[in-house]
């Protein structure tokens, strides 16, 4: 078992290294950071001096090596745009993204499961059909459009909710939270709906189809034949058995929520790491881009590694057969 885990961890580390290498190879195509860093009065001399100072005159492999060297010591360099350490900026921005992702995730799971069960039980009811058709919107409309529509409806027309920002935050030992103020909670509503809508419809459709599958099984019929109440059949017997694949998908989607918060954060000017990344791309802020990409890939690789290890416990075949994958 240990060998299996070590092998998987080794593969994960290799994936990380390759992601970083590809990222550094691509940075040159994003543009030249020097142009943004110096004003229009700069001289050719200034450009060369700064380029040498930042090590941008070296091949990308060397730049990558230097980045890795710093990164293993916990030093991700200094942002070209803000002139502050990247690690500090990321830590400052992380709570905003994590809180948003958490609220979106909880909303998506709660509503997704509830609506999924409802549409499965009332398969032919008119309300279930309306919900199913409406869910197509969640799947097919791009996130930024949903965000802008929500802003126009709830901020501009109705004036109920703020259109941008996080509202007031309270600092709890370095973690700035929006959960403790009224404006902070209000500010969370629109972005979290925007971000979680896709996941919600995904979960809903998955729960529905799994549920329909399970409801056809013999043990459900027997349960009904035994005269159990509908609620007991639906929730205790049917729902429980649909949850296995749903939980797998939820786990994987959680990573996606954090990674793809970029667009939602841009629309709502949500001061999280996604917005930071977009700003970094526009300014060609290489240290921030590199650190963000590495962070996201660590997250995905970590989730996959965890899933792999869980499979090891769940699937006995992996234990017997050491040579093959799954």
């Amino acid at each position: 078992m240990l060998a299996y885990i070590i092998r998987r961890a080794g593969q994960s580390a290799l994936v990380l290294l390759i992601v970083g290498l590809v990222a550094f190879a691509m940075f040159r195509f994003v543009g030249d950071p020097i142009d943004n860093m110096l004003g229009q009065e700069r001289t050719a001399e200034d450009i060369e001096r700064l380029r040498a100072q930042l090590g941008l005159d070296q091949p990308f492999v060397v730049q990558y090596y230097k980045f890795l060297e710093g990164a293993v010591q916990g030093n991700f360099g200094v942002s070209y745009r803000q002139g502050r350490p990247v690690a500090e900026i990321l830590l400052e921005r992380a709570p905003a993204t994590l809180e948003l992702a958490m609220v979106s995730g909880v909303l998506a799971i709660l509503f997704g499961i509830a609506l999924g069960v409802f549409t499965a039980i009332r398969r032919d009811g008119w309300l279930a059909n309306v919900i199913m058709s409406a869910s197509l919107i969640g799947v097919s409309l791009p996130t930024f459009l949903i965000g802008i529509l929500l802003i126009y409806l709830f901020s501009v027309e109705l004036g109920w909710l703020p259109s941008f920002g996080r509202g007031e935050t309270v600092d709890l030992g370095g973690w700035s939270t929006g959960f403790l103020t009224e404006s902070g909670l209000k500010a969370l509503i629109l972005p979290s709906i925007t971000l979680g809508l896709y996941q919600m419809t995904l979960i809903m459709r998955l729960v529905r189809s799994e549920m329909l599958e399970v409801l056809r099984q013999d043990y459900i019929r027997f349960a009904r034949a035994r005269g159990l109440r509908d609620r007991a059949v639906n929730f205790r017997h049917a729902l429980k058995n649909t949850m296995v694949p749903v939980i797998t998908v939820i786990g994987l989607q959680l990573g996606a929520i954090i990674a793809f918060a970029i667009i939602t954060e841009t629309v709502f000017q949500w001061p999280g790491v996604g917005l930071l990344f977009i700003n970094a791309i526009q300014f060609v802020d290489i240290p921030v881009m590199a650190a963000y990409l590495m962070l996201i890939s660590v997250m995905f690789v970590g989730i996959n590694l965890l899933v792999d290890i869980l499979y090891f416990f769940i699937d006995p075949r992996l234990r017997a057969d050491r040579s093959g994958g799954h």
Partner: protein
Amino acid sequence: MKTIVAISMAAALLATTASVSAETLRWARSGDALTLDPHAQNEGPTHTIRHQMYEPLIIRDVTGAFEPALATDWAPSADDPNVWVFNLRQGVKFHDGADFTAEDVVFSFERAKQPNSDMKELIGSITEVRAVDDYTIEMVTDGPNPILPSNLTNLFIMDKGWTEANDTVNVQDFEGGEITYATTNANGTGPYVLQSREPDVRTVMTRNDNYWGIDQFPMEVTEIVYTPIQNAATRVAALLSGEVDFLQDMPVQDLDRVNNADGLVVKQAPQNRVIFFGMNQGADDIEADDIDGANPLADVRVRKAMSMAINRDAIRQVVMRGQSQPAGMIAPPFVNGWTEAMDSESTTDIEGAKALMEEAGYGDGFSIRLDCPNDRYVNDEAICQAAVGMLGQIGVTVNLDAKPKAQHFPLITDGQTDFYMLGWGVPTYDSEYIFNFLVHGRESDIGTWNGTGFDNDELDAKIESLASNTDLEARNADIADIWRVVQDEQLYIPIHHQVLNWGMSDKVGIEVDPEDQPKVKYFTMN
């Protein structure tokens, strides 16, 4: 019980004092200041934020005219043409209570001349700044410099003592990873005091009630909350929903919407920025075209024909929705050297253009690549697209290559483009600035943005002589001569002057400043 009473009384007291004259200006634009360090970045939005907290010796008021700030008056020295004398304002205090004296000015100029400073080119001609007494400064330049004051309007003065105490004497250094105190803190003499700052999120400033000019200027805003909002639709939504009182970087497609909304107005003025195309006339053969062994752009007739093919009124109406002013020269209207006659020299004449192309031997036309930014100027890519169609009418097939600014501008400074869009603002309000960067032949420290390959030694000498010509009349005559050459050579194809739009709640009173640098001390609130 006692404490409860005390607390509620204190709360009541706070509530009443706050309601007396608390006017908060909630202000948004697309980007944030990059740093608060006064000398680390020479960039518009960054200067704008600094202007609320720091002050230079001289500022420009809303009309662009000089206004005394930390200097009360200034003049060239009677004894030595290489010296400017500045009398400083007395009784001014920095936010931390320290006195403002000549020592701080000397220190700030030395700091701005450090290698890491982004302001050093603007004051490159200054060789020494010396304090005559506590309130008099002499600036020595390497030759007579008649327009020195116009280079000082964004050069902020720091307190020597504060800077030394906080170990921030050196301008922020990126590579060293040095986080200077001045990057995130501010101690100026300006009308507003920094309260809190989260970069890219929110910057809060409150009124400096000890400001020297508190009785001179409206100063009606007691608190400024500055929030960058990057997404244009969200930015406008924030103004429409009343969450923001004052908005810069208005998207042109939303002007009518904002103007028609209750309680909101849009104010506009010509901006200090002209948009034009550059053409590489210097190379024997250029890579971006389909003609081998010759450079069509080297022929002035081709350049003239291309300029005549551009219909600036159509661009103004269709692409810019009326938000531009067609240009005939590459100087914004309030710059010394601009003339109305030259600014209306661009005419559209397709037949005439075709005839010129024929005459130049390119009657069948040619094809060329146009490099264009897509995130720098108002509707930049759309302007280029319009130009593609217009140039097609005279047989010039244009392949448009639009890119983000971070990829576009290096093409110009590295000489990798033969046909490109560029916009130019003139912080000094004088033509010399344009000539230095766009007309003078390209060298390592001059002509850096001249991607045309144009290099005329005689003209270069004339441009260089402007810097030290103290006879303003003769100098203006030289400027006019240089412009004549630029116009006759059709060095650039001018397109238009951008128009600046500020959206605001109707309780905010301020006129648009051509530099796009609102100074909140001029704002009224009612």
